C-alpha cells in the first residue's frame, strides 16, 4: 500500500496493464503532450515507456477516437478511447451507442468489443455549462455497456484494470475534481476491483445512503456529521452503475428501512431514480419512511460561484435530508 493521488493511481494501473498486454493502448487528444500543461496529466510519462504507437496523440476528432477504438477493439486490441470528459464525449455518442454497445449482439456473438471509453464527469469550479456535465445515467440505459464511476484512488486503479481486462465495452467515468485527491492504493499489479461490486464505505443501522463517484465521498462526510448527532448512517459506494450491486443495497435497506440517494447530476432522469424505483418495487413494504433522492436542479451548470452553488449538492444537503427522514 502507498498513498498516492487518484491521477497517479489510475496512471499506474494503466501502465501495469500496458506492460501486461502489449495490445492495450490509449488514444486521445494531447495524450502524449498534455501533461506538460494542464490536461491529460493522468498519462504523464507513459509516452516515454510505451511510445507514440501505444500512447496515441489524436487529432481533434471525437467521432473517430471512439469509432476507431471500436474498430480496433473488434480487430483484437484493447483500446482506451479517452474523450477527456463526457461533455466532449457527446461528439462520439453515436459510435459508442450504435456501434460499441451493439456489435457483439447484433453480429450474433462473432465479435467482442473490449474497449474502454474514458469520459470524466462532474462540475469543476467555474467550468460552466459545457464542461461540467454528468451523464452516467444515460449509459445505464444502453444495453451492452458497463458503467464504472470510481470514487477513490484505490478503486480508480482497481476498476481501471478490471475495465481494461473486460471483454465488453466499459464507460469509465472519473470525476474531474478527484484526480488530485489522495488515498491508499495497493501496489500489487494483480489487485483488481471487480466490476459490479459496491464498496461498503461505512456501516450503520439508521439509514442507507447510496451514492457513487465524488458524491460517495460527500456521503461519507455527511455520515460523519450525522454520527455526531447520534445518527448511524450506512454509506454504500456503488462504484459500478451497471451492473449495480442490488444485493448490497437491498441488504442494507432491509436493515435500516430508510434509503437516501444523493447524486451530483441533475435529479430528473438521473441514476438515483433507477435505484429508488428498484428499491420501491422490491422493498416497498419494508421501508419505514419514503425513499428520498437528492440531485441538482434541472438547470445547466452556471458559472458564477453563488449560482454554481445553487447547482451543487453538498454534504450538508445529504445530512439535512437524512435528518429529515429520521425526523430530527
Amino acid at each position, binding site marked *: 500500500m502507498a498513498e498516492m493521488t487518484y491521477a497517479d493511481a489510475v496512471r499506474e494501473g494503466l501502465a501495469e496493464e500496458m506492460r501486461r498486454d502489449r495490445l492495450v493502448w490509449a488514444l486521445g487528444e494531447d495524450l502524449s503532450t498534455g501533461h506538460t500543461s494542464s490536461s491529460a496529466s493522468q498519462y504523464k510519462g507513459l509516452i516515454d515507456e510505451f511510445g507514440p504507437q501505444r500512447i496515441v496523440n489524436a487529432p481533434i476528432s471525437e467521432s473517430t477516437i471512439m469509432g476507431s477504438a471500436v474498430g480496433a477493439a473488434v480487430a483484437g486490441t484493447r483500446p482506451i478511447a479517452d474523450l477527456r470528459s463526457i461533455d466532449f464525449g457527446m461528439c462520439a455518442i*453515436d*459510435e459508442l451507442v*450504435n456501434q460499441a454497445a451493439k456489435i457483439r449482439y447484433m453480429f450474433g456473438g462473432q465479435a467482442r468489443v473490449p474497449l474502454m471509453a474514458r469520459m470524466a464527469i462532474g462540475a469543476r469550479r467555474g467550468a460552466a455549462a459545457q464542461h461540467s456535465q454528468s451523464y452516467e445515467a444515460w449509459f445505464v440505459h444502453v444495453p451492452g455497456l458497463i458503467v464504472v464511476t470510481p470514487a477513490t484512488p484505490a478503486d480508480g486503479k482497481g476498476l481501471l484494470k478490471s475495465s481494461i481486462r473486460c471483454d465488453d465495452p466499459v464507460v469509465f467515468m472519473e470525476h474531474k475534481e478527484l484526480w488530485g485527491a489522495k488515498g491508499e492504493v495497493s501496489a500489487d499489479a494483480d489487485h483488481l476491483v471487480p466490476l459490479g461490486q459496491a464498496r461498503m464505505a461505512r456501516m450503520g443501522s439508521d439509514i442507507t445512503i447510496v451514492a457513487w463517484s465524488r458524491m460517495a465521498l460527500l456521503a461519507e462526510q455527511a455520515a460523519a456529521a450525522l454520527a455526531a448527532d447520534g445518527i448511524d448512517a450506512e454509506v454504500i459506494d456503488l462504484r459500478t452503475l451497471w451492473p449495480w450491486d442490488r444485493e448490497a443495497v437491498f441488504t442494507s435497506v432491509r436493515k435500516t428501512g430508510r434509503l437516501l440517494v444523493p447524486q451530483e447530476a441533475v435529479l430528473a432522469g438521473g441514476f438515483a431514480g433507477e435505484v429508488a424505483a428498484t428499491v420501491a418495487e422490491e422493498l416497498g413494504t419494508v421501508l419505514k419512511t419514503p425513499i428520498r433522492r437528492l440531485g441538482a436542479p434541472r438547470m445547466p451548470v452556471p458559472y458564477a460561484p453563488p449560482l454554481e452553488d445553487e447547482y451543487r449538492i453538498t454534504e450538508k444537503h445529504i445530512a439535512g435530508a437524512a435528518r429529515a427522514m429520521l425526523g430530527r
Partner: protein
Amino acid sequence: MPAPTQAATDHTNQTERIFGLFKTMLLIRAFEEAAHQLLTEGLVHGSVHQSIGQEAISVAVCGNLRRDDLIQSNHRGHAHAIAKGANPTAMMKELLGRAGGTNGGKGGSMHIADFSVGMLGANGILADGMGLAAGAAHAVTLKGEDKIVGVFVGDGSTNRGPFYEALNWAKVFHLPLLIVCEDNGYASTTATRGVTAGGGPAVRAASFDIPVVSVDGNDLLAMDAAAATLIERIRNGGGPHFLHAATYRLKGHVSRDPGLYRPKGELEARWDHEPVRRAEAWLAEQGVTPTEIAAARAAAQERIAGGVAAARAAPFPDPKVAYADVQDVGGPSWPK
C-alpha cells in the same frame, strides 16, 4: 494520379480470372433477386437494400483481397459479404431470421457479418464504417500483421463528418486502408449531386493527400485492375488509398422503393451499362461460349435457390438466444 491499367498483367489467365469474378457477380445478382422475392412473401422482416447494378465493385475489390484481409461494409452489404466469401445460404437464413443465419438471426439484412472471412459487418449508420475501418487498420498495424482493411462507403454518406475525420486519421497514422466509394448518384430518394458541393468525394479525399483513383465501377476489368494496383500499394506500406467507383443502383433504395424520384428514362438508359451484361460481352469476345455463360448463370441461381430452400426450412432461433451475447457482466436474464 492516372488510373492504373497494367495491374492485371500478373494474372496468368485474365479470362479465367474475370470469368471467376463474373460468377460471383451472378451469385450476388441471384441473391438480391431472391431476397426481394422473399421480402414480398413476408418472409424477410425489415427492409432489403439491393446491390443490383453495383456488383462489379464488390467482386473486384474483394477478389483482390486475401481471405484474412478485413472489410467493413455499410447498409447495402449483401454484395460485399458474398464477394468476401460469406456463405449465401447462411446469409439467406439471416435475412429470414433463422437459426444458422450468419448472425444467428439477431442482425438481419442490414447487419450481416462473417468474421470467419474477414467481413466485419454491415452497418446501419452511414459513414460510421469509416472510423471502424480506420480502427481495424490501426489494430492490424499494432499487431504487426500484413493484412489490409477495405471499407465501402456510399456517395451520399460522404457528406457526414466522420468520413472526413477518418480520412485525416488514416493518412496521419499511415494506415493500410482502402476506401471504396460506391458512387451511385443517389442517397435514398435524393440525387446526391444536389446536396454535394464541388467535385465530390474524390476531390475531397485528395485534399487529405490520399491518392485517389476514379474508375467506371460498372467496368469489371477496370475495377479489377484498379483494385489490384491500390491493394498492392497499400500492402507494400503505401498508406491509405481511395477508390472512387462510379456506378448506378438499378433498383430502389430499398427493394420496395419504386424510385419515382428518378428522371424519366434514366433507369432504362442505365440498364444498358450494367456490369453483368458488360462483363458477359467481354467474356464472349474472349471466346467464352454462351453455353458456358448459361451454365454459370444456372449454377449461381441453383446455389441461391438451394440457400432459399434451406432458409425456408430452417427453424427460428430459440427465444432464449435473445438473452445471450449482450455482455458478460450485467447481461439480461431469461425470462424477462
